[in-house]
C-alpha cells in the first residue's frame, strides 16, 4: 500500500510541541496562577474538572460515535497521566445518546443538572446535537460537539456551541471542487449529490468554488438517500459529457452511481466525497468492476490514510488505551474536539469559568496532527475545520494525492 504525507516523526514532534505546555505542573509552569478554591460554575474544584462526554454507544448509528468517543476519552486519560490541566484531573461522566434527539436531550439535561458537569463534549449526529442547542444556550453551558459536522449545528453560529471538527458539508463540497480544479485541472464537472439539507449545503459550496476556480458544473443531479434506480440521473450526466463526475451522495446512491459508471462504461475520473465512501473496499466489492476504479478519488478530512503514518500516533494512543479493540475508520474524528477542550481550558487560566472557557474557544487555532487543516474558531465562527486531502483508490492500493484543499465559501 502506498502512503503519502510527511514523515511520521515530524508530525508527532509537532503534536508534542503543541501539547507540551499542558503537561507541566501548574505551580512550576504558572507560578502565580494556582487555583483559587472559589468557583462560580459547577463541575470544577481545586483538583478536578468534570466533563460530560457522550456519543452513540448503541443503536443503528453506533459506528459514527463509539470509537470517536472512546478515542476522546483516551486523549483525556493521556492528559491526566501527564498531570492534568492547571493541576486538575479531568473527570469524565460518559453516556450513550444513541444519535437520537430525545435521548441526547435527556443525557445533556442529566449531565448538567444532576452530574453538574463544567462543559459538554459529545454528539456524533447533527440532528441529535442540534436539538440540545436551545438548552445549552439557555443554561450557558459550553457544548463542544464530538464529531457531529452538519452545517445546521454551527450555521448560524451560537455562543456556546462549537463543532464540525471534520468539516461541514460546505467544506466537503468546496474542497471537492478545489481538488478537481487545482489538482486534476478539469473544467467541466458533473455533480451528483443528496436532495436534503446536507446536499443543499454541499452544492452551495461546490457552486461557489466552481465560480471561484472558473470551472463549470455542466450537470447537477440530486437524489434521495433511498433511491433504488440511478439510470435517469446517470443518463443525464452522460448526456452532459463532463470531464469528471463528482459524487457527494450517501453510500448507497454513491454505490449505485458507481455501478452505473461500470454499466455505461464511463471512463472519466470520479471524485467522491468522504460520506460517499465510508469503506472503499466495500464500495469496490459492491461495484465489482476494476475498470470503474481506474480513475477514482475520494476525499478525507484527515491528514493521511486512516492507517497512514500521519494517523499512527492516534492509533497507538487508542491501542494503548484499549488493547483488545480494533478501531473503525471514524476513530480519529473524536480526538480533535477533546484537544480543543484541553487547549481552551489551558488558555482560560487557572480559575476558568464557563464564560472564560467559551472566550478561549472563540479564539482557538491549532494543528491537531490528525486533521487535514487547522482547527480554527473565531468570535463569529463555530465550525472548526475547512480542509480535505484526496486519496486515489484503484481497488487494491490507496495513494494520498499531493496537497491540502480548502473551501473558501462561508455560507450566505
Amino acid at each position: 500500500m502506498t502512503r503519502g504525507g510527511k514523515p511520521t516523526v515530524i508530525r508527532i514532534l509537532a503534536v508534542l510541541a503543541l501539547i507540551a505546555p499542558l503537561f507541566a505542573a501548574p505551580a512550576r509552569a504558572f507560578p502565580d496562577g494556582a487555583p483559587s478554591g472559589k468557583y462560580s460554575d459547577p463541575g470544577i474544584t481545586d483538583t478536578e474538572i468534570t466533563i460530560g462526554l457522550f456519543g452513540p454507544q448503541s443503536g443503528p448509528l453506533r459506528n459514527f460515535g463509539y470509537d470517536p468517543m472512546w478515542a476522546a476519552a483516551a486523549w483525556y486519560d493521556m492528559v491526566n497521566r501527564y498531570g492534568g490541566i492547571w493541576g486538575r484531573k479531568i473527570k469524565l461522566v460518559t453516556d450513550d445518546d444513541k444519535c437520537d434527539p430525545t435521548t441526547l436531550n435527556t443525557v445533556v439535561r442529566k449531565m448538567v443538572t444532576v452530574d453538574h458537569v463544567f462543559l459538554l463534549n459529545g454528539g456524533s449526529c447533527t440532528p441529535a446535537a442540534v436539538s440540545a442547542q436551545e438548552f445549552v444556550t439557555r443554561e450557558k453551558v459550553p457544548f463542544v460537539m464530538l464529531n457531529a459536522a452538519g452545517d445546521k449545528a454551527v450555521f448560524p453560529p451560537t455562543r456556546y456551541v462549537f463543532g464540525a471538527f471534520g468539516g461541514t458539508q460546505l467544506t466537503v463540497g468546496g474542497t471537492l471542487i478545489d481538488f478537481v480544479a487545482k489538482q486534476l485541472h478539469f473544467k467541466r464537472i458533473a455533480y451528483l449529490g443528496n436532495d436534503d439539507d446536507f446536499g443543499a449545503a454541499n452544492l452551495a459550496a461546490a457552486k461557489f468554488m466552481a465560480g471561484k476556480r472558473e470551472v463549470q458544473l455542466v450537470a447537477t443531479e440530486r437524489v434521495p438517500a433511498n433511491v433504488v434506480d440511478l439510470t435517469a440521473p446517470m443518463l443525464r450526466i452522460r448526456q452532459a459529457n463532463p470531464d469528471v463526475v463528482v459524487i457527494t451522495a450517501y453510500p448507497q446512491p454513491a454505490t449505485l452511481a458507481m455501478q452505473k459508471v461500470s454499466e455505461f462504461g464511463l471512463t472519466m475520473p470520479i471524485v467522491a466525497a468522504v460520506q460517499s465512501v465510508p469503506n472503499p473496499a466495500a464500495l469496490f466489492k459492491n461495484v465489482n468492476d476494476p475498470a470503474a476504479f481506474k480513475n477514482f478519488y475520494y476525499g478525507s478530512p484527515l491528514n493521511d490514510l486512516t492507517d497512514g503514518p500521519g494517523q499512527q500516533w492516534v492509533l497507538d494512543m487508542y491501542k494503548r488505551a484499549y488493547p483488545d479493540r480494533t478501531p473503525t475508520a471514524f476513530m480519529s474524528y473524536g480526538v480533535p474536539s477533546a484537544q480543543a477542550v484541553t487547549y481552551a481550558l489551558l488558555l482560560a487560566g487557572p480559575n476558568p469559568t464557563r464564560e472564560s472557557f467559551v472566550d478561549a474557544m472563540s479564539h482557538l487555532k491549532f494543528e491537531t496532527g490528525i486533521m487535514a487543516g487547522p482547527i480554527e474558531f473565531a468570535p463569529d465562527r463555530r465550525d472548526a475545520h475547512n480542509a480535505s486531502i484526496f486519496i486515489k483508490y484503484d481497488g487494491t492500493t490507496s495513494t494520498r494525492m499531493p496537497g491540502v484543499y480548502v473551501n473558501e465559501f462561508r455560507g450566505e
Partner: protein
Amino acid sequence: MDTLLQAFEGGVVTGSVYALIALSLVIVYKSTDVINFAGGDILMASCYIALVLLVGWGAPYWLAALVAILGGFVIGAGFDRLVLERIARRARGQDIMIAAVIATIGLSYVLKGLVRMLGYADEVRSLPAQFPGRPLFLGNVIVLRQDIGIVLAASLAVAALYLFFRFTKLGRGLRATAEDPRAAALIGIPVARMRMVIWGIASALAAIAGLLVAPKILMTPDMGIIVILALAASVLGGFTNIPGVIAGGLLLGILENLIGLFVSTQAIAVAPFLVIMAVLVLRPQGLFAGAARMKKV
C-alpha cells in the same frame, strides 16, 4: 433516442421487481384484507439470511437462496400463525384490519432491529449477481445479463404462481379462501391454515424479489422502503387485479425513469406518491381494473 431506450430498459427491469413485490402484497390483501406494510422488510430480512449464509457460513449460492426463500415463507406464515391468527381470535368476529395493519408495521420494525443485530448491517452490502457477464448491446442500448435475468425470473415466478393457483388443489383452496372464507369453511377448507400458507407464499415471493434486486439496488436494513413503490404499483394496477398490478409495476418503473430523465432527478422521489394520489382521486379502482365495485359488508 438511445437515451430514451436506455431509460425504458432500466424502467422495465426495476418495474418487474416492483411488480413481483406488489404481487406479494396483493395476494395477501385479496385473501385477508390486510395491507402488508412489512412486505419490504420481509424481502430485506430474506436477503440478509442469504448474506449471512454466503459470507458467514460460506454456503453455495443456490443453498443460500433456497434457505432465504424458505426463510421468507417461515417469516410470513409464522407471523400469520403467531400474531394475526391470535388477533383475529381475540377480536371474536370484529374487524381486525386496523390492528392487523399496525401489526405488520410492528413486524417491519422487529425485522429491521433483528437484522441490525446481525453485524452485517453496518455498511452497504450486495448479493452476487445471479447472471454475471459482459453486458449486451442492442444498438447503443446497454443491457446487463442480470437485467435480462431479473425480467425472466420475475416473469417465471408470476407464471408459476398463476399455474399454482389455477391448477393445483392447494391453489384452488387458497383461491376459494380468498374469494369467500365463510363458504370455503363450510365446504371443509381449513381457512386459518390456508391464510397461513398465503402469507407464506406471498413472503417467499418477496424473498425472490429481494434476491433478484439485491445485486442491483444494494442491501441496507432500510431497503424495505421499496414496499412503498410496490404499493404505488398496486394502486396503479388496481389492488385486487393481478395482471393489472404487474402492468402497474412495469409502468411505474418506466414512469420513474422518464420523469427523472425529462423533468428532474429530484422528481423521481415524489413520482410514486403523485401516482398514488392521482389514481386514488381519478380512478380509485386502478388503471387496469374494471368499474369500481361496492363491497358487501
